[in-house]
């Protein structure tokens, strides 16, 4: 078997997406849960638990976008023009989120802080939901013509299945965020995070079952690859085990294990999503065989992919190194000091 650069970049883009989902996942989750605490100090504690990190986490999305653009420009173009309105709303949410975090602490008026609190929570929820919808729509497929141009309308993007995946995304990130908050806080706030965790876990469990069943019914193509590559079932089993380990670890009072398990769960979701698509990047609901964008017909030239591989080989270890440095610097329980938000 020759070395398949296209497959490599499909995997690398998956890695970037996983990195984004795990890392921004917990800070979006903290945002979703933000309004569940009432008083200012606790809200500040929650906000500052992600304070130094959220910005760097969002860079994974930017790099994911850049890598998609570079490796599979046709896919990038088709997805972005198709999802015009949802992506504009996503930008709206991301801008408001960033701004809320940054500006909330600049005044002490309760009305000022309350306003940005609501913005922060709403924007985090909307962004998460839209990510989920985008994943859901990709699973279902969209009508493309032979030029890979979208021929549908907004209702193709509001398929009930996609909306379900959107809700699942909110549930996953909220749960993920609750575990993160449990790790980073102490005392009453930590107990509060624990209560939140259980609520979100049941919410997630329900959505997980709903979406799994719905996928099997609505997207039969999703398990095609499992017949070709039976070893993929291992990932499914690991996924179930990871999900099961989250409540177990929380029950035993080992939040770090729970957090790692929820990271694994998210990674498994991204992996299964990629498996369901492979070798397609965007599946066309019309003439699937010819009108879909796959990792070959949507790709850049081998030369570009080679250059990007060199860039990634040099760049990724450095990125991981200083991501680790920053996370290490801000380890431990969150405390408010003069530099906090």
């Amino acid at each position, binding site marked *: 078997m020759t070395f398949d650069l296209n497959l490599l970049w499909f995997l690398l883009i998956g890695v970037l997406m996983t990195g984004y989902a795990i890392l921004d996942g917990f800070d979006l989750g903290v945002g979703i849960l933000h309004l569940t605490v009432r008083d200012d100090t606790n809200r500040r504690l929650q906000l500052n638990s992600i304070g130094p990190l959220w910005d760097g986490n969002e860079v994974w999305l930017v790099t994911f976008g850049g890598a998609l653009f570079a490796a599979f420009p046709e896919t990038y173009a088709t*997805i972005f023009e198709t999802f015009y309105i949802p992506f504009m709303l996503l930008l709206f949410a991301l801008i408001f989120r960033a701004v809320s975090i940054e500006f909330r602490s600049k005044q002490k008026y309760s009305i000022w802080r309350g306003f940005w609190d609501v913005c922060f929570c709403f924007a985090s929820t909307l962004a998460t939901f839209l990510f989920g919808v985008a994943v859901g729509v990709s699973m279902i497929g969209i009508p493309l013509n032979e030029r890979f141009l979208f021929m549908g309308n907004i209702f193709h993007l509001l398929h009930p299945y996609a909306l379900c995946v959107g809700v699942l995304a909110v549930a996953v990130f909220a749960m993920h965020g609750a575990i993160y908050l449990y790790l980073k806080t102490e005392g009453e706030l930590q107990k509060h995070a624990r209560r939140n965790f259980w609520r979100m876990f049941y919410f997630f469990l329900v959505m997980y079952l709903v979406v799994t069943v719905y996928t099997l019914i609505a997207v039969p193509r999703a398990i095609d690859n499992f017949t070709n590559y039976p070893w993929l079932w291992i990932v499914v089993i690991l996924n179930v085990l990871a999900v099961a380990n989250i409540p177990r670890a929380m029950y035993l009072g080992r939040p770090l294990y729970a957090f790692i398990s929820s990271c694994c769960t998210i990674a498994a979701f991204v992996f299964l999503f990629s498996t369901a698509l492979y070798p397609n990047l965007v599946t066309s609901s019309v003439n699937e065989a010819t009108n879909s964008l796959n990792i070959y017909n949507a790709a850049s030239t081998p030369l570009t992919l080679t250059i990007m591989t060199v860039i990634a080989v040099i760049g990724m270890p450095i990125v991981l190194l200083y991501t680790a440095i920053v996370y290490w610097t801000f380890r431990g329980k969150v405390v408010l000091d003069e*530099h906090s938000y």
Partner: protein
Amino acid sequence: MDLDVVFLSRLQFALTIMFHYLFPPLTIGLGGLIVIYETLYLTKKDTAWKSANVFWIKLFAVTFAVGVATGIVMEFEFGTNWANYSRFVGDVFGSALAAEGIFAFFLESGFLAVLVFGRDRVGKKFYYFSTWMVFIGSVFSSVWIVIANSWQQTPRGSLVQQMTNPSTGEPWFIDGAPQMRAQMQNFWEVVFNPSTIDRITHVWAGCAVTGGFFVLSICAWYILRKKHMDFSKRCFKVALVFTFLGVLASAVTGDSNARMVAEQQPAKLAAFEGHYETGDGPTALHLFGIPNDKTKTVDYSIEIPGMLSFLVYREFPPKTPVIGLDQFHPDDIPPTQIPFQAFHIMVALGFAMLGLTIIGFFFWWRGSLFKQRWLMYLFVIGILGAIAANELGWVTAEVGRQPWIVYPPMQKTTDGEILRNADGIIQFQQAEWPTLEGGAVLKPAGLRTRDGHSQAVVQSQVLFSIIMFGLIYTLLFFVWIYVLNEKIRKGPAPVGEAVTPPEGFIRTAGEHAHDSMTSLREQAQDPSKLPGTSPIPKKPDKPSDTPDAYHGISKILRMFIEKFKK
């Protein structure tokens, strides 16, 4: 003007990029100064520099956050509004964008966290290292995006080719049309295309000027108010040198840019100068004027004869005419009015800023720099000039690129002469667009702006997003200004004073307002002190320097809050 998708998409891109570009030059330039101040702190062991940097880093962080948020928009818009362009350039442009993400953004955002939150968590040396990393990260981010943009202006290292259909291995046609795109041939030729160096250095110079004037402006304002004098004077002097070097570099790189444009994109330079007819003799330089497309002259202009030929060709006495717009096909000519005005105002602002910094040096030498109140006022408003010059520079470059989104290179003969057809019209390099029958049609090896937009997007969608961005950005801008203003009013913490107030929270600028609110609340509890019931209403403590407009707003806010509390 026709409100079609292309026009609206251009409008939206212009709006969002111009808004975004308020911030990066500020953070890059200020990042450089922060590195210098931190170096001074470590070498001179003077804590005054440290407390100065605490202040600048706060302003940096707020600006950076807005820059990041508006920057994501730009990346999305390549796909959402310019999908065809993305398909065409992805193979070349995409790797620069990916490199930017990997090399620059992670570096910036990671170490900025250390800079803003980590002063007490990491050692002095690591903190110093972080200031460098943030600065280098922001410089890297400018490198990659300017490389990508420069390739769009002067493409090299790539060819416009037909794609191969991966499923058949044959040339790819869809509906009889060839699948064409720019494909990379040589990465380093893409990176070092003829305009990269000139443009990146000019951008950096602009960043230094903006960051420098930002500091000068704030310090000058404090000096006028006789506040934070030690802080202001020391920061001002360093920033003045920094800015002067920046303006000087702008002039030098600006000149070499113009000569590069004359060689690579003569139509663009002709548009800068409203140079319609080539003529036979040396070409004059217009100091100002209004280009008139109908009469093909520049109205109300004052010109220096032969000056443009002198600047472009460096000949004295000048004799060679500069290429005019008449040597281009009418379809390939950029609009003249906007590039002309933007270019001339940018240059004028550049000279004004150069003059201002030199006057600053003069009075510094005379030892009376900070006593010249008129000069300080000029420095306060100088930041507007710096920002305007940066914006106008990009307007010049990008509108001058029209009607191309990817500019085809000039066709040259083997001895380097520009190729013209029988009518004397300049020829662009051609690419073969194969036909199904086995022949080929020759077209310029570029992409026109009108062919670059997203075909799946309709007018109403873009209209929606323009309105959305218009509203958000207006809000964002005012909030940014407001927060910045609060921080500036609060000013840097005095040297040696414990920065940490009793309850361990950061004393934000808002506390000012909060303090006066407390006094208002006290009044509310004591009806005799309420304004209106008492014959001489006692005003809440108000800092003497509070601008009246601000006070008015805060008064309304406070009334509103009191009502809300009830």
